[in-house]
């Protein structure tokens, strides 16, 4: 055949490509590169050495020196660190090894109960348990026990496919809650009352005694733990084992054929994650001087998953960023914090959502925003004329926003039932928006936003504790549908 096809100028000449290198795959990084400021930040961040990234954490050491109340440091600082720790552990299981562990929170609880049992006094059901071990021994024991428990649970994953593993571990988590709540015959866990009489962290070795008792002290201790775990996990992820984990996540069969002990790797990841959860649990129990069954329920599990997913499974930076973002928004949405913060956060989230929805066209965004504002005032004016009850309600802790809300959102008195219908209608509208395209979408967005504000002001803000969980549920769904790799994860290159 002398007739060779003419060389295509777009195709690389064979001299440019090395043998055995898939160009499309090798250029994945360049394709992924974003332009603009975001892309530049990402590039600079990617270029930093690991120690440089770690050094960026140092400002966090100084947080306790700021003039903040104990409660603020506890609610924000301690919780962020504990969830960062938990997320780092779960990241090993889910992010590196790709095992969906829904019983993870049980290890957290197990660590907490182990610490509480080993360093505290309890009288229950005629049994008295008095152990006042030094913290280094009880934390170590808790961590080792969790690792062993993880080994046992993980060995069930040997025969289980991904989904089955998820459900078995979910059962394990549930069984833990049932057990601690009521089914324990020896009173070790003291049922639903939990264990309250716990020592603070008290280290004593070679005649040196050190007791951590203040919130700030716990903050620093936890900070040290996070840095330590961060370094360990980082080294681990770069090691042979870490690479093997990722390989067996991507394709267990191929990994097996390359001679990797896939089962043993899975169990290792499981057990390692469990140990970190145990560490987090024992420090958590000491910090809140108690371990209670409700601390280790499904809601906590969802929170940890939200952190890992938002941060981006597999990314260590992502875990810290995710923990910060999730815990801050979680606490801000809480009832005990000033409600206007919750409100600001909510509307900010709404604005970000609209911006993401219309990121392709500024014109549509402008039209949607302007008509939303206009529609709010119009509805309000009409209601004022024909339905006085509709505007005579009061704003729930409005602060400086009271006036704006009062003029723009309908606030009926006795709005309960209306708000419920509004909520249901809102779900339908959101469903519709996702289906619509182009200008139709622009047409439906303003009424949806006005309705959202209505539901928020009349229903959601009054039950912040529930609302935040609803929002996290939505966040998980939306993230999975739009950006499953999270904030700091990298989109995978699919090789077909």
């Amino acid at each position: 055949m002398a007739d060779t096809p003419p060389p295509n100028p777009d195709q690389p000449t064979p001299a440019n490509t090395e043998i055995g290198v898939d160009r499309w795959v090798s250029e994945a990084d360049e394709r992924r590169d974003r332009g603009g400021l975001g892309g530049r930040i990402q590039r600079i961040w990617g270029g930093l050495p690991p120690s440089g990234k770690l050094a960026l954490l140092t400002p966090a050491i100084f947080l306790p020196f700021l003039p903040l109340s104990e409660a603020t440091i506890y609610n924000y600082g301690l919780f962020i660190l504990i969830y960062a720790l938990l997320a780092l552990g779960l990241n090993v299981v889910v992010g590196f090894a790709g095992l969906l562990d829904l019983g993870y929170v049980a290890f957290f609880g197990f660590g907490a109960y182990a610490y509480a049992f080993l360093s505290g006094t309890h009288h229950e059901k005629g049994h008295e348990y008095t152990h006042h071990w030094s913290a280094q021994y009880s934390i170590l024991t808790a961590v080792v026990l969790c690792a062993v428990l993880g080994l046992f649970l993980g060995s069930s994953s040997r025969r289980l496919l991904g989904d089955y593993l998820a459900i078995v571990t979910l059962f394990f988590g549930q069984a833990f809650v049932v057990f601690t709540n009521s089914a324990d015959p020896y009173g070790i866990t003291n049922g639903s009352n939990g264990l309250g009489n716990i020592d603070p962290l008290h280290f004593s070795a070679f005649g040196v005694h050190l007791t951590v008792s203040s919130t700030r002290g716990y903050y620093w201790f936890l900070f040290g733990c996070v840095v330590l775990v961060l370094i360990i996990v980082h080294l681990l992820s770069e090691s042979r084992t870490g690479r093997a984990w990722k390989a067996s996540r991507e394709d267990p069969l191929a990994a097996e054929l390359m001679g990797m002990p896939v089962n043993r790797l899975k169990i290792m990841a499981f057990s390692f994650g469990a140990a970190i959860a145990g560490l987090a649990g024992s420090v958590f129990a000491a910090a809140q001087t108690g371990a209670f069954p409700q601390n280790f329920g499904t809601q906590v599990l969802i929170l940890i998953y939200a952190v890992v997913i938002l941060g981006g499974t597999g990314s260590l930076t992502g875990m810290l960023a995710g923990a910060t973002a999730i815990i801050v928004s979680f606490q801000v949405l809480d009832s005990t914090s000033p409600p206007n913060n919750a409100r600001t956060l909510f509307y900010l989230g709404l604005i970000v959502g609209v911006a993401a929805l219309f990121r392709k066209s500024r014109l549509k965004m402008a039209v949607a925003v302007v008509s939303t504002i206009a529609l709010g005032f119009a509805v309000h004016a009409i209601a004022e004329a024909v339905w006085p009850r509709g505007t005579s309600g009061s704003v729930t802790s409005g602060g400086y926003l009271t006036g704006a809300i009062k003029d723009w959102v309908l606030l009926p008195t006795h709005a309960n039932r209306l708000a419920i219908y509004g909520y249901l209608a809102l779900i339908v509208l959101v469903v519709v928006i996702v289906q619509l395209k182009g200008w139709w979408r622009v047409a439906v967005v303003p009424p949806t936003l006005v309705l959202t504000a209505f539901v928020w002001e009349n229903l959601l803000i009054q039950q912040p504790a529930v609302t935040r969980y609803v929002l996290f549920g939505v966040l998980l769904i939306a993230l999975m549908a739009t950006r499953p790799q999270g904030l700091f994860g990298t989109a995978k290159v699919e090789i077909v």
Partner: protein
Amino acid sequence: MASTSRQVLGNLAGLGVLLAIWVVYAVYFSPTQGWTFFFQLTVNGIILGSIYALIALGYSLVYGILKLLNFAHGDVYMIGSFIGFGVLTLLGGPLSPAIPVALLVLCMFVAAMLGSGVLGLAIERFAYRPLRDAPRIAPLISALGVAFFLENSVLLLFGADYRNYDGYDLISYNGIHLGGEAGVFVSYLGVLVISGALLLMVALIALVRWSRFGKAMRAVSFDREAAAMMGIDPDRVIAITFLVGSALGGAAGVMFGLVYSQIYYLIGFLAGLKGFTAAVVGGIGSIPGAMLGGLLVGLVESWAKGYLNGNVADLVVFGILIGVMLLRPSGLLGTPALQKV
């Protein structure tokens, strides 16, 4: 094929031996309680089991076609239960129904099945369809989000209070006494639940086995791509599968409300777990397996509640699940999965 059916027979024989040992143990070694108590628990277990079987069918159908664990199914069941309660309240409540009771109960079932079915459709469309080609872990996390969203939405809208169906007030406190006045009691409500569940299961089997849609469903379940090449729209088949499975879940929710009266926003979690256990014990993806599994889980739970106590009952059910998964991962009636490369 021959080896599979032999394995299924072996499983069933093993199950029979275990059950026989249990019956002997339960009756001869707890003489204070005797046969009547045992059979009463068994009847209760069958009622509970038919509810679990309906839930399990929802899991099994979806798993069979998508190889996906629909974590949100338990909450679809819970919503079905609430819809039934809403219809009951709208039409006058259990004590003074506005329309004939039979019609009212029918309305509750129809509304709950429709509502749950549409909800299932929506969940499929939003939480699962965008993730069809994503890694396997993605739809599971999305499902977790859906479950959480549904639970907390109901908590937000209707509060944490228990709602009372008062099914016995609505239908009847009477029932059939088997073996005399002191014998085993089966309420008419229980009869209604068992026969309703049977009816739905027969309808489902007929749908899957004989209808055009059933044929399409089996084809998609067998090989989605090949089915698409033959002119079947897999997305449509999957959507309808979700509709059917969720509708069964909704019916189970109403049945649960009628028999156990109290519903609240968290009933979906445990019921979902147990329905899933049932599906796995029977062999996930297999329709008769889901029924058998549901029955077994109901029986075990009822016996454990009678001879041990309520909290331990859950642990026993969980223990059975873990045991079955470790020893017979493909379930009693399921076929061992061959991994295609």
